């Protein structure tokens, strides 16, 4: 009997403190786990509870999975107290992941906000694996302040991976040390960054950011079906049974969590 609710034990290999309330945990599952960028998994604190996260690491690596986790509730609060060597659990992957085949030979325009860069990091690594298959890769990332930027150690190196990669960061609130753009991430979404007719936009961030980024992308001329949104819902079982993550006729856990805007734009309350 395969028990879909059972988890695989995983050891905490390393912990990176990204910001004051965000940490990246590298986990080594007891047996290798294959996932596709954009799919999510449930991370369990044995005997405490579990919560859904999208791995933020390269999907070509199956024996070491990164999870970038913001302290936001009971389980994440306790996860933040985990130490290297602790054993947690993982189950999954669930959902559909990014349709990379559909992005081939296109310009990929990625917009992230805050900890929403986590699944996009997995996407970027997947794109970097076959970097020449994509015409252009552009990342526009927004954080509240410069202190809230995640992956500070590596984000600067992404631009140098290939000539057709561009990375720009904006912070909502500037300070003396920040030399880049100050303003919401929508202020760095400009016409001309990509060839709209041959581009896809991938967005992940807090609901309010996703809403305004989507409207801005539509203004720029992106088609509904070319905008890929990560819909954050209360995904629990991961297999379309528990009922928590319903969004219109879909369950985010099995039909998503990434949806193109045309599939959800006529549904109610999608931004709440």
């Amino acid at each position, binding site marked *: 009997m395969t028990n879909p609710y*059972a988890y695989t034990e995983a050891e905490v290999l390393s912990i990176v403190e990204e910001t004051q309330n965000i940490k990246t945990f590298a986990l080594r599952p007891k047996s290798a786990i294959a996932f596709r960028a954009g799919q999510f998994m449930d991370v369990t604190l*044995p005997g405490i509870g579990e*919560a859904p996260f999208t791995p933020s690491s390269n999907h070509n690596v199956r024996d070491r999975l990164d999870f970038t986790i913001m302290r936001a509730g009971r389980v994440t609060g306790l996860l933040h107290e985990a130490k290297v060597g602790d054993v947690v659990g993982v189950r999954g992957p669930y959902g559909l992941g990014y349709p990379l085949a559909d992005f081939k030979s296109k310009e990929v325009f990625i917009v992230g906000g805050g900890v929403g860069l986590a699944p996009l990091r997995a996407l970027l690594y997947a794109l970097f694996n076959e970097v020449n298959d994509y015409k252009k890769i552009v990342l526009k990332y927004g954080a509240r302040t410069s202190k809230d930027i995640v992956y500070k150690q590596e984000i600067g190196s992404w631009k140098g991976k290939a000539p057709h990669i561009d990375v720009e960061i904006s912070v909502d609130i500037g300070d003396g040390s920040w030399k880049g753009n100050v303003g919401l991430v929508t202020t760095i979404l400009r016409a001309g960054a990509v060839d709209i007719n041959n581009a896809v936009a991938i967005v992940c961030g807090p609901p309010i950011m996703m809403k305004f980024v989507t409207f801005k992308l539509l203004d720029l001329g992106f088609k509904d079906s070319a905008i890929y949104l990560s819909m*954050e819902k209360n995904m629990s079982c991961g297999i379309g049974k*528990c*009922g*928590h993550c319903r969004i219109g*006729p879909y369950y985010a856990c099995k039909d998503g969590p990434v949806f193109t805007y045309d599939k959800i734009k006529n549904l109610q309350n999608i931004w709440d």
Partner: protein
Amino acid sequence: MEKKLYKITRKDLYDLFTRLSSEYRILVPYAKGEALHFGEFDPEKENSIELGGIRQSQPVKSFINPAREKILNSSRRDKRPLILAGVKGCDLSSFILQDFVFLKGDTEDPFYAENRKNTIIIGNDCTCAKETCFCLAMEGTPYPQKYFDINLSPINDYFLAEIASDKGEALITDFKMFFKNYTAMDLNAKQANREKVTREVRYFIDKRGTQSTAQIKGAVKRNYNLAALWQDFAATCVECGACNLVCPTCHCFLLFDEKAKDANKRYRIWDACLYNTFARVAGGANPRKHLYERLRNRFEKKFDFFPEILGYFACTGCGRCIEACPGDIDLREVLKGLVSGEKWNKPPND
């Protein structure tokens, strides 16, 4: 398989249950006040067993998808297969939905599948109707049509037993002496009872003007943004979730972890979409912050979502939610409001 029909007396049926009770766990309906409750078969309490009447207080899901099921490091205490006797038509039709949720799709729920496999279902015709009954409006009937292994149609002090599956046939194979030939009169009596109860249910539906599925189709979508309607019906809701818990088609659950000395436990526990935590995510965002949105969600799920994805209106007309609601919210009145919509469509100053 070909359906087989026999006659069995009440006494012989209880003798059969007594003989089977070492191998099977047997649940039968007992009369308790005005209601029926499932309980363990006990030959000494034969007089209060009621195989007839109306549906029991517990929805049938309680025995296949229990309110709390251990799903990690579990070991079943009672390993005997279950015989569930006396299940009414309204409850049986909920298997369309429960089986769809737990058995279909990419992943099967192995705990549900095992319980389903290990349960023999003995259906039972209703012999009366209650004011809250409206199965006919929800495309059901007050007698089982599907999802049973054996069905019992009560006639005086005996039953017409219909054997409808191999599981049912296997159960009685060693006890054929209890099963006798029936007469044409028995068939007529069975039919007469079914028609009588159907008339009773129809009477209650007509009296209240309860809407049927054809009328309800599209009504939730049409009135989705009519906040005043939903707010009116949610005015007396106390978010107890009773309507969810007693509903034979509600299937939502949460996963709950518990620390234990030897092996940690994980449970699958019924959840209720009326609770404000149901759709809330970490950090506090909640797509259904307001109570009226959660009440609306219940109706959207039953009368819009499932008709769309399964072609099934997720209400069996059992009426349990009407009886359970401490705020006197009557699902039939909500449906009437949704179909007419009139009262709430008037401009505020009219």
